[in-house]
């Protein structure tokens, strides 16, 4: 359950950037090849945010499909596993070009005006 420590890192990074302001929304980008389950992160988010400025914030997750480029024929194809053989030339190896993301894209804070 590495999602727990990953969600803790998300909350720590967001809390630091919030600098005391209340966080109302967090937008994450999770690639399908990152070995991180969005549902597990959602589950951990409520627990990890408790007692922090992120408590009560909504969590949005953009899931990015995996893609890989063949190191032999250079064609790009969808990729479901972290690596694999090229389905087009059947000789090259697919190197992921997308789907390994694990980023905090954006956060929304509420501040006094």
């Amino acid at each position, binding site marked *: 359950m590495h999602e727990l420590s990953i969600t803790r890192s998300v909350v720590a990074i967001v809390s630091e950037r919030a600098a005391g302001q209340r966080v109302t929304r967090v937008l994450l980008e999770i690639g399908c090849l990152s070995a991180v389950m969005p549902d597990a992160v959602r589950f951990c988010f409520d627990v990890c945010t408790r007692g922090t400025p992120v408590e009560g914030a909504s969590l949005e997750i953009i899931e990015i499909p995996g893609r890989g480029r063949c190191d032999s024929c250079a064609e790009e194809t969808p990729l479901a596993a*972290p690596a694999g053989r090229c389905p087009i030339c059947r000789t090259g190896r697919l190197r992921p070009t997308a789907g390994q993301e694990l980023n905090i894209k954006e*956060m929304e804070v509420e501040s006094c005006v």
Partner: protein
Amino acid sequence: MCVTCGCGQGAETELTLHDDEHVHGGHTHLSNHGHSHDHGAPGGHGHDHEHSHDHTHPPFHSGNARAPTGPMVPGRDRRSIALESQVLAKNQLIAERNRGWLSGRGILALNLVSSPGAGKTTLLERTLVDLRDELKMAVIEGDQATSNDAQRILATGTCAVQINTGTGCHLEADMLERALHLLPAEPNSLLFIENVGNLVCPALFDLGEHSKVVIFSVTEGEDKPLKYPHMFAAASLVLLSKTDLLPHLRFESKRAVENALSVNPDLELLEVSAYSGVGLDSWYTWLRRNLAAQEGS
């Protein structure tokens, strides 16, 4: 809940140095929320110490106070902040620092990963005994609980640091960093890091090691690489272990190798048995070759 400050974050991680003289009660609090303390220079010995809190908790983070929640109120404004921040950036930064520290000393650090019970510790014990007159070696043991593995390593005459991750299912780079401060790791030596038995989580956390080595025992299914592709994709070497049991099993090594290579065509694979010793020479040759390369880098 964190037992150090009661803030409800993190699990307690403990590090203990086991060497041939005595067990040092080095005890480290490793949750990722900003406690800091100093262990002195790498290579120094562990020691009991007080934790120093070098930070103040903001008001929302103390006692039972909760962050303000509830509906929007007039006079408040919502503002979006673009972050583009990698979640694992902090772990990666520490891992790169560890890698530099190790490579500067010519230390070849190997992150040994497997399912629980694949034979990591047994293979290590045999390796340490077979190579102890030839190479300088040290071990970092990661387990959720107990120092059983460190005791087994110590019995071979090798120094070991036991990291107990508590509820943690994998080692992280900061745990290795602190273990390196406890461990008297010698220049131009081999450092085996036995990760928590788990084929999922350790794949994501770079420790700063030279390579990940998967120990894949023949008592598991041939399709393990397909079921846990991330780990096999992240590894450089697979040791197919417990091969002395093959006559009693329906395990087809050829299929296991094909599956591993389909996930990662760059993998090296060696068949070994720590019990009979068959195949260990090729593992030792791999270690010597990579240690020589690390020393020369």
